[in-house]
C-alpha cells in the first residue's frame, strides 16, 4: 500500500528526467501565448519567416550539439558561416555557376571545421581556446579578403531557394538525419560514449581523435549549409553576417537539454531550442520591441535551462541514493 502512494510523486519527478521536456514546454507555451495575444503570429507569412529563422539557427545548433555531445565546444560556427557564405557570394557575383559556388562554400566550411578538429585532436589544445581563436581568425580573414563588401544580388534560380519553406524542410531533414545518426549508427553511439567518458572510450579502443575530427567537420558543414540558406533568403551576404549566432546556437543546444560536459542529450532537443529562439525572436518583433533586446531573453532561457539541469541532477541523485538504500540498506557515503 505504502508503495503505491509513494510511486505517484516519483512518476511526476520522473518527468523531470526527460531532457527535452523543459524546451518542449517553453516552446508550446510561447506558441500558444503568441497565437492568442498576437493574431499576426498566425499568418502564413509570419510562420514562414519563423520557420526560416529556426532553420538558420537550428542547422547550426545541430552541428554544435554533436560537438557538445563529445564534451567539446565550437565557438567558431558563426564565423565559419560568414566565411563560407562570403566565398559562395564572391563566386556567384564573379559569374560562376551557382551549384559550383554551393559546393565551394561547403568545402570551405568543412575545411574550417576540420582545422578546428585537427588543432584540437592532433595538437591536443583545449576546444574552447582553439575555437575562440578560429572564431577571430575566420571572421577577420573573410573581412580582409572581401574588404567588408556586400555581395548581391544572386542569380534568381539560387535566390528563389531561400524563399518559402525550403530552409525549414532542409532543417527538418538535417535534424532527422543527424538524430538517426546519433541514435542508430555506430558512429553516433561512439560520439555519445566519448562525451560520457573520454578516458574510458580511449581505453576501450575507440578512435577518439578520428571521431572528434569528424564531429567538428560535420559542425563546419552544418555552418556552410546554414550560410547558403541564409544567403538565398536575404539575397545578399557580407563578412559580418550572422554575428552572435554562435551564442544562439549554443543557447539552443543548452536549452534543448544537452549536457554541456557531453554524453547526454539529443539532436531533437537542440532543434527544439532553435525553434524557441525563432519564436521568441518573433515575439519581440510582434510586440514592437527592438531585436537587440533579444539578449535578455537569451540570458533568461539559458538560465531557465540551467536551473532545469540542476533540478534534474538533484532528482536523479536522490533516485540513485534511494536505489542504493534499497540495495545495501544504508546511505552511500559521500
Amino acid at each position, binding site marked *: 500500500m505504502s508503495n503505491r502512494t509513494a510511486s505517484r510523486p516519483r512518476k511526476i519527478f520522473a518527468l523531470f528526467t526527460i531532457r527535452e521536456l523543459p524546451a518542449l514546454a517553453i516552446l508550446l507555451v510561447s506558441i500558444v501565448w503568441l497565437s492568442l495575444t498576437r493574431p499576426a503570429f498566425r499568418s502564413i507569412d509570419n510562420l514562414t519567416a519563423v520557420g526560416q529563422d529556426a532553420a538558420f539557427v537550428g542547422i547550426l545548433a545541430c552541428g554544435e550539439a554533436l560537438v557538445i555531445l563529445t564534451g567539446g565546444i565550437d565557438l567558431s560556427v558563426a564565423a565559419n558561416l560568414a566565411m563560407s557564405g562570403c566565398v559562395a557570394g564572391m563566386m556567384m557575383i564573379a559569374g560562376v555557376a551557382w551549384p559550383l559556388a554551393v559546393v565551394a562554400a561547403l568545402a570551405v566550411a568543412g575545411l574550417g571545421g576540420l582545422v578546428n578538429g585537427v588543432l584540437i585532436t592532433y595538437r591536443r589544445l583545449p576546444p*574552447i*581556446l582553439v575555437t575562440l581563436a578560429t572564431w*577571430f581568425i575566420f571572421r577577420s580573414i573573410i573581412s*580582409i579578403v572581401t574588404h*567588408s563588401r556586400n555581395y548581391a544580388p544572386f542569380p534568381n534560380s539560387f535566390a528563389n531557394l531561400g524563399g518559402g519553406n525550403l530552409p525549414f524542410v532542409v532543417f527538418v531533414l538535417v535534424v532527422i538525419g543527424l538524430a538517426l545518426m546519433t541514435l542508430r549508427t555506430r558512429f553516433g553511439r561512439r560520439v555519445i560514449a566519448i562525451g560520457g567518458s573520454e578516458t574510458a572510450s580511449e581505453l576501450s579502443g575507440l578512435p577518439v581523435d578520428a571521431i572528434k575530427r569528424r564531429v567538428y567537420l560535420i559542425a563546419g558543414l552544418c555552418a556552410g549549409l546554414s550560410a547558403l540558406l541564409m544567403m538565398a533568403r536575404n539575397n545578399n551576404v557580407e563578412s559580418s553576417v550572422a554575428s552572435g549566432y554562435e551564442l544562439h546556437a*549554443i543557447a539552443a543546444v543548452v536549452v534543448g537539454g544537452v549536457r554541456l560536459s557531453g554524453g547526454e542529450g539529443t539532436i531533437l532537443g537542440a532543434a527544439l531550442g532553435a525553434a524557441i529562439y525563432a519564436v521568441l525572436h518573433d515575439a519581440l518583433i510582434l510586440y514592437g520591441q527592438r531585436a537587440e533586446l533579444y*539578449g*535578455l531573453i537569451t*540570458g533568461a532561457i539559458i538560465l531557465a535551462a*540551467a536551473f532545469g539541469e540542476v533540478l534534474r541532477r538533484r532528482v536523479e541523485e536522490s533516485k540513485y541514493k534511494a536505489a542504493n538504500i534499497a540495495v545495501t540498506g544504508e546511505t552511500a557515503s559521500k
Partner: protein
Amino acid sequence: MSDRTDAARRAKALPRSARRKGPLNRLPPETGVAVVLIIAVLYLSFTQPYFLQRDNFRLIAKQSAEIGILATGMTYIIATGGIDISVGSVVGLCSLVLGALSVVLGWSLWISIIVCLGVGAACGLINGLLIARVGMPSIIATLAMYAAARAGALLVHSGGHISNIPTDLVNFAQTDFAGVPSVAWIAIIVAVSGAVILRRTNAGRLVLALGGNREASRMSGVNVKLVEMLIYTAVGMLAGLAAVITTARAATAEPNAGTTYEIQAITAVVLGGTPITGGRATILGTILGVITVTVLRDGVALAGQDANMQQLIIGVALLIAVEVERWRLRQAAASIEVAA
C-alpha cells in the same frame, strides 16, 4: 595522456648529463610571452620608426589599461578553473549606467562612478551566485550574462550612445602622473595588488588551492563557495572600473563599449602562461600578455592595417600561446618524471 608519456620517454632517452642540466625544463611560465613580446618589439622598432616615439609608448600604456584591469581579474577566475566571458558586456552596461547617471540625470560624478562600480559588482555577484550556489558551469552562467548585460545596456538608455561626459572625467584620461598616463596607473595599482594578494596572502593561496583541487580544498575547511562568489563579484567590479576608463577615454558612453574585451583578456591570461585548467597563475605573465596584445594591435595600426587585421593577429597569437603553453607543460611533466 599519451603525449606526456611520449615526452617522458624521449626525455629518458637523453644522456644523463643532458637530462639534469636541460635548461628548458626549468623555464618560468612567463617565458613564452616574454619571447613573443621581445620579438614583436624588436621587429616593430626596426620597421616602424614611429614605434619608439614617447607618444606611442604613452598610447600603448593607455590602451593597455582596461584590458590590464580585466585580465588581472580574469587570471583569478582562470586560476580557480573557471572562465568569465561576460566582462566585455558588463563594461558596456556599466559605461551606459555611468553616462546615464552623470549626463542624463545630472548626478555628481563621484556618485555615478560608485553606482557604476556597484552595477558591475552586482553583475559579478549574479555570476558568482549561479556558479557557486546553484552549481552551473561558469561558461553557461557567464554566457547568459554576456547576452543579458549587452541587452540591458539598451534598456538603461534606449537612445544608444551618450556624449557630453563630464569634463572632469574626460580630462582625467588625458593627465599624466610621474610621466605615465593616470589611467595606466590605475591598471598598475590593480595588477600589483592582484599579484601581491595572489602570491603573498592566505586569500591568494586559497584561490590557487581551489583551482588545484576543489574537493580537497572543501574538505580542508575552505569555504569554497564564498571564495568563488567573492572572486566573480570582484571581477564584476573591475569591469565597472574598466568601464569608467573606457568612457573617459572615448568621452562617450555607448552600449557597444567593451566588445571583444573578454577575448582580449582571456588571450592575455593564456598568453601569459596561466594554464586554463586552473590551480596555477601568474599576474606578471598576464601583464606581459596584455602588453603583447596591445603592442601587436599598435603594430598593425602603425603598419596601416585595419581592425580586421588586429583581430586576425590576436587570434593567431592566442593559438600560438596555447601551443607554447602545452609544450611547456609537457617539458615540465617530462622533467618531473626524469627526476622521479
